[in-house]
Each structure stands twice: as structure tokens, then as C-alpha cells.
């Protein structure tokens, strides 16, 4: 492999990685918020909105991100809504991730013992207080494993952003292959870039999961 070529192009990958990371961070953050909101609506069983959330989750989980991006980027302008590439990427990732996060939190909520709710209610707390202080913290803790695998899944999904003309890692790679025919080098650097992005997240998640599982609720001493 042509290492001097690789060295000369590294900066492109750094720029691409920065963009990927930037879009992914914002998209995932919004996805978490959307997921939280959806799971709360389902939990509180708010009529009508609950059904809307249900439709959204099915729609989101059963269509590929690429199609969602095409819809945002090429479809919406036809009805007069123009979004920038970055906006499309963030909205797309939020739309996709929101449903995955909602499912993660729902599993977490379902696994909070019913008696916990009764106890909190019997102490005079309102439904909302019970949810906020007793149910939600435990649900979040329960949902950490699925939550973590969702983050990694969403990070990987960002590789389709190049489809809406964003100079992310995939875009840079396709460009280099197109211009210089350095397929091996370009692909190698792409794999390495994604590894560098994902490994720390993956390791962080493993540690977090272990903490939740073995030392429930962040307490270091004893067992």
C-alpha cells in the first residue's frame, strides 16, 4: 500500500471524521430526547398522542435511513421545504434513532417492579413525582445495555450521510477512489477511521454496562 499517499490524505479523513462525529453527536442526542419523550407518552398512556407515537415508531423502525434521507433531501423540496444537507442528516438520524431509543427506554420502564410504584404512591407522591424520582431513574439504569448498542448502531448508520452530499468519511473515501483509483488505501483508512471513532464508545459502553450490572446504581463499596 502507498503509505505516503495515505499520509498526504490523512487530513481529509480527519475532517470527515470530525463531521461524522459532529452530526452523529447531535443526531443521537436528539434521538435520546425523542425516545425519552415517546416512552413517557406511552407510559402515561396519553390517548391519541400515544397512537401517533406508535405509528411513528413503526414507520421509523421499518424504513432504512437512506430512504429517510432521500425523502428529506429530495422529497421535501417538492413541497417547498428546503433543508441543508446537515439538517437532513441530523433530522434523519433523530427520526431513526428516536424509535430505537424509545424501545430501549420502554424495556427499561417495563422492568421497574410494580411494587415500587405502589410504595411511592403510598407515600403520598403524585403520579408525576413517582415517575420522575422513582420509576425513571430505575428505567434508565435498566435500559443501559440496549441504549449502548443503539448508540453504536446509530454511529454506524452515519455512513450513508454521503448520499446527501456531506463530506463525511464515506464521501471522502469514494472521492479518493474516484480521483486516484487508490481503492485499497482509501478503504483501509475508512475502516481505521470508523474503528477509531467506535472503539472508545464501545469500550465506554462495556464499562458502563458492567457498572450497572455488578455494582447496581453506581455504588463502589461492598457486595
Amino acid at each position: 500500500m502507498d503509505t505516503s499517499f495515505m499520509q498526504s490524505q490523512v487530513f481529509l479523513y480527519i475532517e470527515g471524521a470530525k463531521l461524522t462525529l459532529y452530526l452523529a453527536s447531535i443526531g443521537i442526542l436528539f434521538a435520546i430526547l425523542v425516545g425519552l419523550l415517546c416512552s413517557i407518552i406511552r407510559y402515561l398512556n396519553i390517548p391519541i398522542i400515544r397512537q401517533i407515537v406508535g405509528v411513528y415508531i413503526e414507520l421509523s423502525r421499518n424504513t432504512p435511513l437512506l430512504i429517510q434521507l432521500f425523502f428529506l433531501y429530495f422529497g421535501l423540496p417538492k413541497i417547498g421545504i428546503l433543508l441543508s444537507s446537515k439538517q437532513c442528516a441530523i433530522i434523519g438520524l433523530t427520526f431513526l434513532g428516536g424509535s430505537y431509543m424509545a424501545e430501549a427506554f420502554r424495556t427499561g420502564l417495563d422492568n421497574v417492579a410494580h411494587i415500587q410504584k405502589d410504595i411511592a404512591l403510598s407515600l403520598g407522591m403524585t403520579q408525576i413525582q413517582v415517575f420522575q424520582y422513582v420509576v425513571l431513574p430505575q428505567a434508565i439504569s435498566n435500559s443501559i445495555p440496549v441504549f449502548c448498542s443503539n448508540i453504536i448502531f446509530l454511529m454506524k448508520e452515519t455512513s450513508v450521510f454521503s448520499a446527501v452530499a456531506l463530506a463525511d468519511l464515506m464521501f471522502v473515501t469514494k472521492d479518493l477512489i474516484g480521483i486516484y483509483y487508490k481503492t485499497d488505501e482509501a478503504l483501509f483508512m475508512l475502516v481505521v477511521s470508523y474503528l477509531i471513532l467506535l472503539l472508545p464508545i464501545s469500550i465506554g459502553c462495556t464499562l458502563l454496562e458492567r457498572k450497572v450490572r455488578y455494582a447496581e446504581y453506581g455504588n463502589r463499596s461492598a457486595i
Partner: protein
Amino acid sequence: MKEMMLEVEHLKKSYDNKNLILDDITFSIKKGEVISILGPSGCGKSTLLKCLNGLESVDEGVIKLKGEKIETEKRKIHKIREKIGMVFQSYDLFPHMTIMENLVLAPRKVQKRKKEEIQEEAKQLLIRVGLLDKKDNYPRQLSGGQKQRVAIVRALLMKPEVLLLDEITAALDPEMVCEVLQVVLELAKTGMTMIIVTHELQFAKAVADTIIFMEKGRIIEINHPEQFFSIPKTDRAKQFLESRGKFQ
């Protein structure tokens, strides 16, 4: 003449609109009095306690607290629960909070009392149940008996008028039963009004001013403990005691 605390009149409850789980329950408890409810499992004891503090809805009947009818309307029900505390069989604390956080949560959020004041009171109560050194531990570091004592303290910190205890030692290892019952006995001495569902007959006899015996959702007998355990009025109570080997 002691003040009337809780009056229950003709209470009816079913979960499926067919089988009555509670059938025409009527009794009352005065301030400072302790009632023990006995009866075979499945006779509706837990359901009754849950109805009394609004965790379950009531189909018919009236519950009065200090002479005032309890509103079972959903939006107001948490106000009643402040006044009627409950401790459950499963000694669940909130697992994501330390013992002190478990204790402070409800008084702070529900009664909006000052944190320092609650903590001070919590410490006093923890001393009384011998668990002050556990205040910064998490629930999983405590034994079942210790957790149940904390659960009692947690309910007490809300300063309830009445405390409902639902088989609070049934899920404990035998060697821990005593330490929890001791706490309840002392509470009784301090004049706490309590309704205690229990399978510990000796304990019921020692702690209660009145025994209520239930079967199949109905009250069969209300009696003084001395009489109930020596010469019960009803044959069914007699059979129940005989089956428990406690009738001489």
C-alpha cells in the same frame, strides 16, 4: 372516650365486577388503637389495606378519616396517602437511592419540608431502629430485616395518622422477624394508630387491642385478643386457630 380515627362502612370491592373480594366490610379504629387483621391467604386482607389508602378503588361504601369522608377522586387521592401510611410485605426500598435519600424523598417532595429538618428527624428514627450507621448505604447492602425497618421509618417520616402494615415479616428469614416486630411493638407503645395484617398469631395477640378475623372477603369476627385466642365467638375462627395449632 378516644377520638375516632378511621371508619369503614359497608365497603365493597371487586376486581372483575363479578366476584366480591371485599363484601360489606364495616369496622372502625380509634386514635392510638391497634387492630390486627387475621385470615387465610386470599381472603382480601391486602386488598382491604390498599383500598384504605387509595391504591385500589372502592366500588361501594364509605371511608372516613377523623369523621371526614375520604374523597376517592383521583386528583386528591395522594393527599389521603400522606395521612395513611403503608408498609408492604416485600421490603422494597428505592434501589437507586441511599437509605437517607430513601427517607428524605417523600417528605421533601410531598410535604415540601426542609431537607435538614427531615434528615435530623430521620437520624433520630434510625437511631431508634438501630440503623444510623447504614444511612449512607444502598439498600442492597442491607439484610431483609434491616430494609424492612428502614421501610417503616420511611413511612413514619410522613407523620401519618394511621399506619397500615401488610404482612411485613412474611417475606423475611425467621431470624429477622423478631427485630422487625420489636419495632412495631414499640410503635404501638408510642400511641401509633395501626392496622396490622399478620400471620404471626403470638405477635397479633401481644400488639393488638382488637382482632378482626376475615374469610372470603367478609369480616367473620371482631373481638378482643384475649377472648379471640381463648374462646372465639365463631366456629370458623375456631377452625382457623386450630389449623394454626394455636388453639388450646
